[in-house]
């Protein structure tokens, strides 16, 4: 067991908890009535969601013309939001699957919330490709199913079809992974509760789990297999998303570095989102013993690492363009940095490259306010990264006669706000109804970093 690092840096879970206390701590938060702050939060988030729903209904009824797009810039906010949300989702899988494979025990406190975040982020992401279509009611044409059109199937050479398969698989697997992890905790909830609809629901969802170790043993195998499958999956998903751009002929999109660049960026943005939510949850739900400064510190180090990768990608892209001796490529990158939309480029660079550098200092990593601000800035920067890639490449491509600008309309902004509303609403509901911390997994690591019992 990789207990050595744990022994060095102290216990994973503070407060010398026993398994029973863990159950109490996590479940009692659910059994208490919601706090005032929760009601305020959900009121705000569901208003945002309602705004989003109204705008989506409006644009589906009226047409995509309600967005600020034009003949040259065919994608902007829609696909930016899509890639942004998918990237957010990736951190959840990374924490739950990749860190599991690497036996990083500290993941147990955050993985439940991170996986929930993945699912909600993928839901938010999936909405954008759907509503960005001119005729969203025909979205099912993306799927290969026997139909009256005879031998007409779908184009398996199109990166959008790859996307369709990648996103739907990713969602399915994430949901399953999350649910499998939830089964023992549902059983714990079921056995604690004395009645009511919660008990009924927990009873239904716990599938008759009784803690048999023979089941636990196979369960561990399944969990390992799922983690092993989810890890290449998460890499594949953002790789495929990057192929939407990399396989095209547009200067600024057509770059082989995009897949690793996107994967690193996804983890970077996702980690910062996990950190944002974690800091909020820690503070508002009194989970300081479970989400310790050590967890925050580990996340910060990951931010430095992935931020560094992203910075290298930015530089490489630029150097590759300059080295290519291709006028169109060179122009695309100079135009990013100095063209009419250069402000978005410099927001991206300052948020994603400069901001995380402060985390090299220990005082910054242990100051929760600093970390919170950094995580928010990175979220913003990573949104702009996708905006830069999509819009600045499209708006000035080969023929100068096509050069245009782009400005979002209020509809697009409201849709983005709506997607945040959806995400936060789902997350708040999750906090109310599902154990926020993986009870069974945390119990398994209680003894880590304490005096050995053996």
């Amino acid at each position, binding site marked *: *067991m990789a207990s050595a690092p744990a022994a060095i840096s102290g216990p994973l879970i503070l407060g010398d908890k*026993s*398994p*029973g206390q863990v*159950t109490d701590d996590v479940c009692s938060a659910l059994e208490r009535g919601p706090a005032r702050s929760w009601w305020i939060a959900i009121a705000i988030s569901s208003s945002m969601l309602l705004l989003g729903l109204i705008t989506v209904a409006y644009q589906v009824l009226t047409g995509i013309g309600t967005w600020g797009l034009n003949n040259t810039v065919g994608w902007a906010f829609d696909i930016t939001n899509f890639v942004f949300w998918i990237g957010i989702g990736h951190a959840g899988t990374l924490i739950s699957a990749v860190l599991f494979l690497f036996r990083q025990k500290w993941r147990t406190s955050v993985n439940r919330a991170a996986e929930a975040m993945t699912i909600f982020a993928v839901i938010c992401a999936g909405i954008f490709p759907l509503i960005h279509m001119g005729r969203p009611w025909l979205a099912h044409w993306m799927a*290969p199913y026997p139909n009256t059109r*005879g*031998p007409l*199937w779908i*184009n*398996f*050479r199109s990166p959008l*079809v*790859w996307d369709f398969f*990648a996103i739907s*698989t990713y969602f*399915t*697997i994430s949901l*399953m*992974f999350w649910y499998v992890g939830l*089964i*023992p905790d549902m*059983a*714990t909830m*079921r*056995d*604690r509760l004395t009645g009511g609809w919660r008990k009924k629901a927990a*009873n*239904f*969802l*716990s*599938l*008759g*789990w*009784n*803690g*048999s*170790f*023979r*089941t*636990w*043993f*196979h*369960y*561990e*195998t*399944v969990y390992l*297999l*799922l983690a092993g*499958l*989810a890890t*290449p*999956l998460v890499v*594949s998903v953002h790789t*495929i998303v990057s192929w939407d751009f990399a396989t095209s002929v547009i200067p600024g999109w057509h770059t082989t570095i995009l897949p690793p660049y996107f994967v690193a960026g996804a983890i970077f943005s996702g980690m910062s989102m996990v950190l944002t939510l974690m800091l909020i949850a820690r503070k508002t739900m009194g989970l300081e013993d479970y989400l310790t400064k050590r967890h925050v510190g580990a996340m910060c180090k990951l931010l430095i690492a992935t931020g560094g990768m992203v910075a290298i990608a930015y530089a490489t892209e630029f150097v590759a363009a300059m080295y290519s001796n291709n006028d169109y490529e060179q122009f695309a990158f100079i135009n990013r940095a100095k063209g009419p939309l250069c402000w978005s480029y410099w927001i991206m660079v300052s948020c994603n490259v400069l901001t995380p550098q402060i985390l090299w200092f220990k005082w910054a990593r242990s100051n929760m306010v600093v970390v919170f601000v950094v995580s928010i800035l990175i979220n913003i920067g990573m949104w702009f990264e996708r905006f830069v890639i999509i819009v600045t490449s499209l708006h000035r491509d080969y023929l100068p006669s096509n050069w245009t600008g782009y400005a979002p309309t209020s509809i697009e902004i409201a849709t983005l706000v709506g997607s945040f509303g959806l995400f936060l609403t789902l997350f708040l509901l999750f906090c109310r109804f599902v154990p926020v911390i993986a009870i*069974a*997994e945390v*119990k*398994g690591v209680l003894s880590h970093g304490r005096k050995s*019992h053996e």
Partner: protein
Amino acid sequence: MAESRMSNANQRFLLGVFEREEDILAATNEARRRGLDIADVYTPYAVHGLDAAMGLRPSRLPWVCFALGLAGASFKVWFEFWTSAADWPINVGGKPWNSLPAFVPVTFEVMVLFAALSTVAAFLVGRGLLPGRRAKLAYPGVTDNQFALVIEETNATFDFDEVSAMLETFGVTHIEERVDQESL
């Protein structure tokens, strides 16, 4: 739940309850060393090393995962070839009929989907975990903070007192005898 081992209606079981992970681990080890028949152990979380203590054989679920993943991938690559190059070859951007490299991403995704769904389904069905099923708890609290060791009283030579005494040395908090599976 190990129904098969407890199908005999008049089978007798000894149930020992512990409060600490280390105790159940040591007790199980000792029980196995003595050749006792361990029906099952009930724990609130996956106790590390308990599988070795119980002498469980490796799970066969990886094979399900591998086989179904392979089947899914083969089906999908065939399907993509068939739709693009055989059923109705359509010239798409001058790409070859059999654009195998372009078929790889979807093949991979379908492989993962098949492998994961089938593994989970095999696990749930194999272990009898079905929606709405009522749980039979060996002892209250085994999903919270109690650890229960269930030993099958295989034959007449089973000495209840001796085994109880053995369990006592590991700090057992509760011992009882059960008859047949329904009481478990």
